[in-house]
């Protein structure tokens, strides 16, 4: 936490500067080899999608521990998206296949406890699918906007 006071104030302003309209915050865990490259391609292709996504690059979708997802929701993310290579295309051969098993259970368990299904989403986007990435983002943003600001599971600090 070696941040100067100036930096911290800047960060705070960024977070508190809001118009009246609510903009969901969505955390996206993207695998380095496919989905992140897909996001890159969407950028260089100048495809438009909502600015609500905070991307976290991970080496592989299998690197995403369900704890990360729950923690993001607890810290106030309105939605979490995890995206990796299409099954069969994993840079590490089988990472996303292992991940898929975890994610299936995560998705079902989160729904079961009563977290809205829109909040936790998983997808596959390849490096060449810039368009698919932009569509995915818009889709997730629309889904999260429909259910509104996150309330369940969010930890409020004074």
């Amino acid at each position, binding site marked *: 936490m070696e941040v100067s006071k100036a930096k911290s104030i800047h960060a705070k302003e960024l977070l508190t500067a809001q118009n009246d309209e609510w903009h969901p915050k969505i955390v996206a865990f993207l695998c380095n080899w496919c989905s992140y490259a897909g996001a890159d391609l969407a950028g260089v292709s100048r495809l438009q999608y909502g600015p609500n996504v905070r991307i976290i690059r991970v080496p592989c979708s299998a690197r995403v521990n*369900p*704890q990360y997802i*729950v*923690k993001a929701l*607890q810290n106030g993310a309105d939605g979490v*998206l995890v995206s990796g290579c299409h*099954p069969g295309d994993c840079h590490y051969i*089988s990472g996303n*296949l*292992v991940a*898929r*098993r*975890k*994610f*299936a*259970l*995560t*998705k*079902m*368990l*989160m*729904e*079961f*406890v*009563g*977290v*809205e*299904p*829109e909040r936790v*989403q*998983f*997808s*596959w986007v390849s490096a060449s699918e810039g368009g*698919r990435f932009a*569509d*995915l983002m*818009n*889709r*997730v943003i629309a*889904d999260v906007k*429909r259910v509104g600001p996150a309330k*369940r*599971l*969010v*930890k*409020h600090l004074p």
Partner: protein
Amino acid sequence: MSNAQTTELRQIAKRLLEEGKIDLFIGFQEGTLPLRSRPAFVSAEAATADSPATGSPGAGSLIWDSFCATNLAVYLPKYYENQPGRRKKREKPYPKIGVAAKGCDMRSIVALTKERQVQRDSLVVVGVPCRGMIDTRKVEAAVAAKRGSAGDGGSAAAEEILEARETEAGKLEVTTRSFGVLTFDREEVLQDCCLECRYPMPEGADILLPGQARKPGDGGYARVERFMEKSSEQRWEYFSSELSRCIRCNACRQACPTCWCKECFAEQTDLKWIGVGNTPSDAMVFQIIRVFHQAGRCVECDACYRACPMHIDLRLYTKKIVKDVEETFGYLPAFDAEALPPLATFGDEQCDFFITDPDKNEAAEGTG
């Protein structure tokens, strides 16, 4: 308490200890509360008689009855711990331990063997065909209801129950303070996990006690299915109200044979996953992750549910993860020591049902 299983168990434990086949036998002895038998650790020196000086019970104190619900596998990993960094060089050989095991204890032993937390070849498992264990809470609830109908508002029943006995005829007789002796059918007061249990017979035990195991149950997925029919709001309402009682005592984690991590994620400090208080959000996050960590490992023994002093309905959530694992990956942790745990492998299964596909035009929906 004397029954055929108890007599046999005492003899076996005594013999094993005396012959030096084991250093320690873990079973049950009479508890200090009605409806509760408690774990007993019989050491070799106490094989023939109690050792009052060291407080160690003798083999003659061992019992087996319908109150032996605790999953004894929870005690085993401790004995097989390696010193950090000394995996290869173990100074002393692994202790030889005898343990009485019901179906669920046996499943835990298999799971722990698979996860290399116990050395199966230094264990002597005395399997007990399980007739199901009596649920303290059901008996208490029944007594409480009785008190309620007696017209003073209903009260906690723990203090009402003075004594409980099983009869030969499969009945449970409970002596109460206000209503004399109440008699219950075993079946009405068995633990739900026993009623639902699919593996009451401990397969793969080294020695099997005589007796008839109960008829296997159906797994009890129906309650999970019924719960899933509720709306997301209702499910959240239930989850959050249950967890609002949580005092973060960690009894659920500590009672669970599967939770053997030396350092729980909840206690990691370099990266703090959750707060230490009983803030509802922290309690819920803890429980979600705990349940998730049970995926493919939970043996449905309900140790967590029994242990919870605040009576939180944890079994609903562990059952959900058991059901999902079985239905999605066809895996159920039973007695097969070779089967790979579902999250340690992958298959060609079609389980893309939860994937958001922007090319398809449906909105995100529940996975049902």
